[in-house]
C-alpha cells in the first residue's frame, strides 16, 4: 500500500482547527467570559500588573521546561533553584557586592546546577525523576544553609529595579518573560538545537544514529532550564526585595502543569512556544479571575487541579479522534 494511491479522506475544517488550536480557543473563550462576567478584569491595571506579573515566574521557567519536555525529560528542581538563586543574590548584595556580579553569579550557579542535572541524566543514565528529585532537595537545603534558614532583606535600589521598574509602561519582569518567549521560541522553532531537542524526545536512539549529539543537547537543555529558574528566582527576589529560602515551593509542578495544559507532550517530541504561552495564560487568567472574585485559596487549589485534569482529558480525546 502506498500512501499516494490511497484515497485521502476529507477532514472537516472544524476538526482541523480544533486539532491545531484547541487550547487557544479555550483561552479566548475564557478571556471573553472573564471580560463579561468579572468587573475590573479588562482594566489595563489588572491585565498588566495583576495578571501579567503573576505569570512571569511560571512563564520564564516554562520556556526552559518546554525544551526538557520536548526532549522527553522534565526537571523537578526548578523551584529550589529559583529560591537558591534569589537567596544567593541577596546574600552577595548584603556582603557589599555589586548588582551585576551578584546577579551574574546567581545565574551562573543556576546554570551549573542544571549542567550537573544534565550530566547525571545524560551521561550516567539516571532517570530525570530521581535525579531532579534529589537535586531539588539538595538545592533547597543549600538555600536554607547559606543564611541559617533566615530570609534576608535587600536594600539595593538597583537590584530592586529588576523587579519594580516599569520601562515603556510594562514592568521589567513582564519584559523579561516576553524576552524569554521570543528567544526560546526562536531557539525551538528556528534552530537546529530546537529541532534536535524535539527529535530526541521523539526517538532518542534514531536521533543519536542520525548524528545528533544527544548528550550535549540534553545537558544544555537542563543547564538552560536551571538558568531560567535562577533568573525567575532573581526577578522574584527583586520584586519582593527579599531573599527567602522558603519561596517557590511547588513551582516545578505549576510550570509542568502550564506546559501540559498548553499542549506540550509529557512523553516528548511534541511542543511549541505557543503551547507555553497558552498554558501559562490559561493558568494565570483562571488564577486572576478567582482572585478578583474573592475565591478562597482552598477552593483555588481544587479548581486549578480540575482544570489540569480537564485539559489532559481533552487532549486524550483529541488523540483518540485522530488515531482511531
Amino acid at each position: 500500500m502506498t500512501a499516494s494511491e490511497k484515497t485521502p479522506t476529507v477532514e472537516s475544517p472544524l476538526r482541523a482547527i480544533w486539532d491545531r488550536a484547541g487550547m487557544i480557543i479555550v483561552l479566548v473563550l475564557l478571556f471573553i467570559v472573564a471580560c463579561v462576567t468579572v468587573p475590573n478584569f479588562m482594566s489595563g491595571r489588572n491585565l498588566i500588573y495583576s495578571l501579567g506579573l503573576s505569570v512571569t515566574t511560571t512563564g520564564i521557567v516554562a520556556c526552559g521546561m518546554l525544551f526538557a519536555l520536548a526532549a522527553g525529560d522534565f526537571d523537578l528542581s526548578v523551584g529550589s533553584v529559583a529560591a537558591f538563586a534569589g537567596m544567593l543574590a541577596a546574600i552577595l548584595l548584603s556582603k557589599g557586592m555589586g548588582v551585576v556580579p551578584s546577579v551574574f553569579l546567581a545565574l551562573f550557579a543556576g546554570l551549573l546546577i542544571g549542567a550537573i542535572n544534565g550530566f547525571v541524566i545524560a551521561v550516567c543514565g539516571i532517570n530525570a525523576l530521581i535525579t531532579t528529585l534529589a537535586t531539588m532537595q539538595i538545592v533547597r537545603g543549600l538555600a536554607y544553609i547559606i543564611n541559617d534558614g533566615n530570609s534576608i532583606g535587600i536594600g539595593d535600589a538597583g537590584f530592586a529595579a529588576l523587579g519594580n521598574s516599569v520601562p515603556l509602561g510594562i514592568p521589567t519582569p513582564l519584559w523579561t518573560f516576553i524576552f524569554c518567549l521570543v528567544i526560546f521560541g526562536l531557539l525551538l522553532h528556528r534552530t537546529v538545537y530546537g529541532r534536535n531537542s524535539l527529535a530526541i524526545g521523539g526517538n532518542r536512539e534514531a536521533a543519536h544514529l542520525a548524528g545528533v549529539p544527544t548528550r550535549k543537547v540534553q545537558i544544555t537543555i537542563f543547564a538552560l532550564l536551571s538558568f531560567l529558574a535562577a533568573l525567575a528566582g532573581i526577578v522574584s527576589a527583586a520584586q519582593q526585595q527579599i531573599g527567602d529560602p522558603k519561596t517557590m515551593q511547588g513551582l516545578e509542578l505549576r510550570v509542568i502543569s502550564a506546559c501540559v495544559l498548553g499542549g506540550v507532550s509529557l512523553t516528548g517530541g511534541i511542543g511549541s512556544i505557543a503551547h507555553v504561552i497558552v498554558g501559562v495564560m490559561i493558568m494565570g487568567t483562571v488564577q486572576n479571575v478567582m482572585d478578583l472574585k474573592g475565591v478562597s485559596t482552598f477552593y483555588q487549589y481544587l479548581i486549578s487541579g480540575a482544570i489540569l485534569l480537564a485539559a489532559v482529558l481533552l487532549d486524550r480525546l483529541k488523540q483518540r479522534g485522530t488515531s482511531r
Partner: protein
Amino acid sequence: MPLLFDGIEKSFPGVRALGGVSFEAREGSVHALMGENGAGKSTLLKILSGAYRPDGGALVLDGKSLSYRNTQDALDAGIAVIYQELQLVPQLSVAENLFLGHMPTKLGWTDTKQLNAEAKRLLQLVGEDIRPETPIGRLPIAQRQMVEIAKALSRNAKVLAFDEPTSSLSSREVDRLFAVIKNLQAEGRIVLYVSHRMDEIFEICDAATVLRDGQHVQTFNSLPEITSDDLVRAMVGREVDTLNAYRDRPIGDTMLRVQDLEGPGLTEPANFEVKKGEIVGIFGLVGAGRTETLNLIAGTATARAGHVTVGDRSFKRLNPKTALKQGIGLCPEDRKKEGIVAIASVCDNINLGVRKSFIVHPKAERTYAQSRVEQLRVRTPSVEQKIGNLSGGNQQKAILGRVLGHNLRVLLLDEPTRGIDIGAKAEVHEIVRGLAENGVAVLVVSSEMPELLGLCDRILVMEGGRFRGELPHSQATQEKLLELALPTKS
C-alpha cells in the same frame, strides 16, 4: 457456518486503509490472508478483534451480524486474534494468563486449585505439558504461542486468526503449530492465517484472499489448484523479476578498510575491505555478529582495538557523528526503534542530523526534503506528513534520503528490506545499485539470501562472531552460503 466479511471499510485521517473488503471464510478451513505490507491485513485483523471499529460494512458469523464495542465483545462472540507480539503478561503464571479477565472464583476469592487444574486441561488440548504455575515470561516464544491458542480455546473461540505466527519459530516448532492448527480445522473452527511465507501458505491453507491497497483483489477458494506465482501476481499487481537482477558495475579503489577490528559481538579480529562502487554482503545466522560489525564501523558501538579506514583517513574510535562526517551512513535494522522519529514529519526526519547551519530555514528544508522524496520516490501525500503514517518501504527510503545528505562514501545497510513489501523491495535495491554506480561503497547485512545474491558483488559469511569465508558473486549460491554460515560441530 462461515465467517463473512461484508464490505468492510475503514479510514484513518488522510488514508483509506480498507475500501469495502468482502469475502467468506468457510468453517473447517484455514484461510490465508495475503498482501504486501500495508495492504490492509492488520487493519482487517484489528477490526475482527474489536480493536478498531469499521466505518462501514459488517462481520457476519453464523448468519448473525457482529457488532462489538471493544475487544472483550469480540472474545465473547467467539473470535480470537493471535498477534505477532503476543498479548500476555510476562510476570503472571501460565494459568493466570489463560484466565485473565475471567478468573474462576470461590466466594469472591480466586480459586487457585481450580485455576491450575483447568489450565492443565486446556494446555493438554494443544499438546503442551507445562506447569500452570510457571511465570509465562520464562517460556520460549513457541510455547507462549501455544498458551495463546489455549487461551482462545478457553473462550471456546469459533474463529482464530493468526498474524504471522511463525516469524520467530524454529522449523520443528512450526511443525507442532501446524499440527495444532490442523486440529482446530478438524474441529470445524475457522482459522485465518496471515503470512508472507509461500511454502507455509501452501502447506497449511486451503483458501486464500489477497488484498492490495486496502482493496479485495481475489479470493482463491481452492489453493492446490494455483501456484505461488498466481498469488504474487495478485499481491503485487504486476510481474516481479527485478529482485534477482544482479548487475555488474565498474569497481574502483578501496574505500573502506577494516583492520584487526575488535569489539562487542566479535570473537576474532575482523579484516576486510569494500571498494568504491562495490556492494559487499554479510551473511550469517542471527547472532553471528553481523549487526555488531556494522555498528562498530558506524560508531554506534565502541571498538576495543583495530582501525577503520575511510578513503585515506584511519580511525581508532568513531561515534555516529564523526562517522557521518566521514561519509559513513547507517540504515539500522530496527526502523521504528532506531531509524525514524515516528511522530515527526518526513521533512524533519530527512533533515535530522543533516542540518549544517545553526539557524533552521523551514522553506529550504522543505524544498530539500521534497527533492530527496522525488529522487527516491518516497510515496507520501506531502513532506509534512508524519513519517509514522507511511509504509515501511517508504520509511526506509526516507532514511536513505537522510543518509544521502552526508556526502555519502560508505553505506551500511542492516536488513534494508525487512518487513518491506515486494514492490518497494525492488525499488530499494535499485536505489542501492544506483548509489554504488555513483561510487558509494556499500556493505549490506541481510538474512535473505536471494537479496544478497541479487545485489552483491561479494558476500562475506559470518558465524559465531567471526568471518568464515567469502564468496564472489559468480560462486555464491544459497547452499554455499548456508554451509559457511552453519556452526561446525566440534
